[in-house]
Every structure is written in structure tokens, then in C-alpha cells.
């Protein structure tokens, strides 16, 4: 039977070539934003500060996305019985150690 789970969730490593293709341009990241550097003007290293801040704010959403996708992959590949350990009691009241 054909699985309904998307291939990117079943085999997340298939996106690895995409990441590898981006690597050669990584060294140029800190050389960008010449206009921003010029516009930043005053300060010790205002252009560098803007650049670092921009890269930081650019990186975080991707890291969050990767984290969420990683969790989704984990959740879909996990056997359902071990998801949260709920009891099978239909009333929702399991055995209690309350005295």
C-alpha cells in the first residue's frame, strides 16, 4: 500500500543535497549588505553589527523550522502506543497512589 506520509518525512536525508549546494556561498555571507554597511554610518563597526544581527535573525527561523520538522518526523515515525503513555481507562481515571 502506498504510504500517505510525504517522502520528506519518511526520508528526511533526501534534502541533504540542497544544504550541500548552499555551502559554497557560506563564506560570502559576511561580505554582503554593502549598502546597509554604508547606511549604518556611525559607530565602531555599525555595518558589521547590522550584518551579524541580520544573519542572526535570518538563521533563527530556519533553526526553528528544522526543529519543528524534526519533531514532526519523529512523531510520524513513532509507534502510536508510546506517544504519551495515556491509560486505557475510558473514564480517564487511572489507578492513583493518593492516600
Amino acid at each position, binding site marked *: 500500500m502506498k504510504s500517505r506520509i510525504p517522502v520528506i518525512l519518511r526520508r528526511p536525508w533526501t534534502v541533504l543535497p540542497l544544504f550541500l549546494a548552499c555551502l559554497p556561498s557560506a563564506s560570502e555571507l559576511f561580505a554582503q549588505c554593502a549598502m546597509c554597511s554604508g547606511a549604518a554610518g*556611525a559607530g565602531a563597526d555599525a555595518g558589521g553589527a547590522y550584518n551579524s544581527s541580520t544573519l542572526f535573525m535570518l538563521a533563527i527561523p530556519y533553526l526553528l523550522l528544522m526543529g519543528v520538522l524534526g519533531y514532526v518526523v519523529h512523531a510520524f515515525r513513532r509507534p*502510536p502506543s508510546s506517544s*504519551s503513555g495515556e491509560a486505557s481507562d475510558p473514564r*480517564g481515571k487511572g*489507578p492513583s497512589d493518593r492516600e
Partner: protein
Amino acid sequence: MTLQSPPATLYSDRPPIPSHRLGMIVFLVAESMLFTGLLGGYLVLRYSSPMWPPEGQPLLPLWAGVANLIFLATGSAGIQLAVRAVRRASHRGLIRGIAACLGTGLAFVLVLGVEWIRLHREGLSLTEGGTYGALFYVLTGCHALHVLAVLIWVAALLALALRDRFSPAHHEPVEMAAMFWHFVGVAWLVLFVILYLL
């Protein structure tokens, strides 16, 4: 002809990611972007400044940051123990975990409050000495508001747990509070590294 049952992950009544957990993830991602924006602004002002901290401004004491980090990490362990306890239907474990979390959260707020008062007496203010004081108060204040929010949540959980309102099949509020608490801990770790160590 024998029919094979479909994979349980696709057709079971319970989805792979419960709705409350998915909603909390979306909320925490949004919260993360709030802190990202604040830290982005901090990095611009911090690294475009010729001297940091500015002359005449006090250094941030490392001990307070470390103590708060330990408090939040202990609280994370406590609330996680509470989640595990409620899944095992251990009422006492649930109460103990939540109480430990509440205590460490109150200790965090206390240490941060003492820290703010001391730094204010030493001359760190919102309006003087450039953006140094304003950035510190805004970043730690925004984080403290989150800690206060999760503390109110945990206090409500404690009140409900004392009335035995949670069970292995119904403990979503405890799990969501745990997620929020872990987020607050990680956010403080990032703030601590950027504010106190860099």
C-alpha cells in the same frame, strides 16, 4: 483473501501530534521570534557601540545569571517529573513536581528582582548611560513577564492537582505548561549567554 490492517499512525483515532501540543508549538515558535527580534536589536546596538558596557555603567553580575539558570533548569526537571508522574497516575509525584517548579520559579523572580534593585542603585537605568541599561531591562523584563505568566499557570495547575483534576488520560494542561517552562528555560540560557558572557 486476508485484509491487512492499515498502519496505526495513519488511521488511528489519535493523531500523531495531539492538537494541544501542536498549538503550543505554534505559540512557542511565535514567542521565539519575539525574543529573536529583541536580541537582533540588542546585537545591532551592542556591536555598533565603541565601548560595552559604557563608561560608568556597572557590569552584570555573573552569579545572578548562573543562579537563575540553575533555578529554571531545576524547575524544568520538576515539571517534567510532574508530567511523568501524572502519566503513571502518581498523584503525589504530580504535586511534588509542580510544587518544586513553582518554588524554583519564585526563586528566579526573587533573584531577578534583587538584581534589578541592586543594579538600579548602582546607576543602571532605562534613560541614562546610553542603551545599555534599557536593553538589559527590556530583555530581562520581557523574559520575567514570561516567567510570571508560567508561574501563574503552574500555580493554577497546583490548585487543580490538589483537587485531583488530572489523570493519565487528561493531563494536557500539565504537558503544555511543561513545554512553556522548558521554552522559558532555553530562552534564559540564550539571554544569559548573550547578555552576560558575550
